[in-house]
């Protein structure tokens, strides 16, 4: 009787092990995975790609008379108005990287969302006796941003029919001149999805 019970347990374990979902790494270059109702990395990649291509193609980053613009993204300037917890810096990091790599503009780390605290801490060392004063940054050396980036991601949920819901995500980005306040460029990308009403889009 005992031997039979052990046999059944062993057989059960083997069968259940076979049903277990395997963990696999995602091929992020050619991901054939099903789309999801919430925003995933593919949506961010597509939105960032389309936004960057539009920005570079617009010529808004071309500085009259040569040189490169200094661009800053304001802290909290990319608003997340979706039902999801989105770190908007994740989207902006991709865009900022491409702006930098384009060679058309430079990003500032002196202020804004990409602020590097050490830039300011280094300036506090001017009067510190332990530091060679010639190696500390002089006053008035920081460059103010000429262009600012701001934006918003928002979500609309629409009942499509009894079983289906439609979720629309809007990625909006703007580039403005810090001195004049004039807007040089703006773009909206829409990512739309339809799925079961039972799915939760956050």
């Amino acid at each position: 009787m005992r031997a039979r019970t052990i046999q059944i347990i062993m057989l059960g374990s083997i069968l259940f092990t076979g049903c277990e979902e395997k963990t696999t790494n995602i091929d992020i270059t050619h991901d054939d995975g099903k789309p999801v109702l919430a925003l995933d990395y593919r949506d961010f990649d597509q939105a960032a790609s389309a936004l960057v291509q539009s920005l570079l193609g617009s010529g808004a980053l071309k500085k009259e008379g040569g040189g490169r613009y200094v661009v800053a993204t304001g802290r909290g300037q990319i608003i997340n108005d979706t039902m999801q917890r989105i770190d908007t810096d994740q989207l902006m990091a991709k865009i900022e990287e491409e702006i930098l790599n384009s060679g058309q503009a430079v990003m500032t780390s002196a202020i804004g969302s990409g602020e590097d605290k050490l830039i300011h801490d280094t300036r506090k060392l001017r009067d510190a006796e332990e530091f060679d004063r010639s190696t500390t940054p002089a006053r008035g050396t920081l460059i103010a941003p000429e262009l600012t980036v701001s934006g918003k991601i928002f979500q609309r949920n629409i009942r499509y029919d009894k079983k289906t819901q439609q979720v629309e995500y809007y990625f909006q980005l703007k580039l403005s001149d810090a001195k004049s306040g004039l807007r040089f460029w703006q773009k909206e990308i829409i990512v739309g999805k339809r799925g079961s009403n039972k799915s939760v889009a956050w």
Partner: protein
Amino acid sequence: MKALTLLFILLVFLATGCYEPYDSRIHVRDEVKSDSIIDNVVTRPVAKAFSALIGEGIEVDEAILRRNEAGILELYINGHNRAYSTRRFRYRVEWLDADGLVLETKTSVWLQASAMGKSPFSLKAVAPRPEAVNFRMDTRKWE
């Protein structure tokens, strides 16, 4: 009778190729434009079935490269969908430098595109850096 039907179908296919729109820039779709002897409610299902049978799809007519004012290369793809149904697909453009090496960029991702049946389509891609001198493009089915 059978021979007559076959002859009629053959004529339909031959005559479809001779149709010329009033202005090639304007596309008036089936069920919007007036039916004709060669394109009507009877012949259209036959033509659609034949199109599906021979597997018609997307065709690229030209790829135009130009450098914009900022010195960035822009790619314009013009093509058309030979099928009667809408073709949804993904495409990815990679940019190559003067040595033929791929420029690493976050913009080279699979993007979505679609072309309605029997319609032209256009795609635009912008290089990430001025170093880009050429491109390569790949497509795949939109799952």
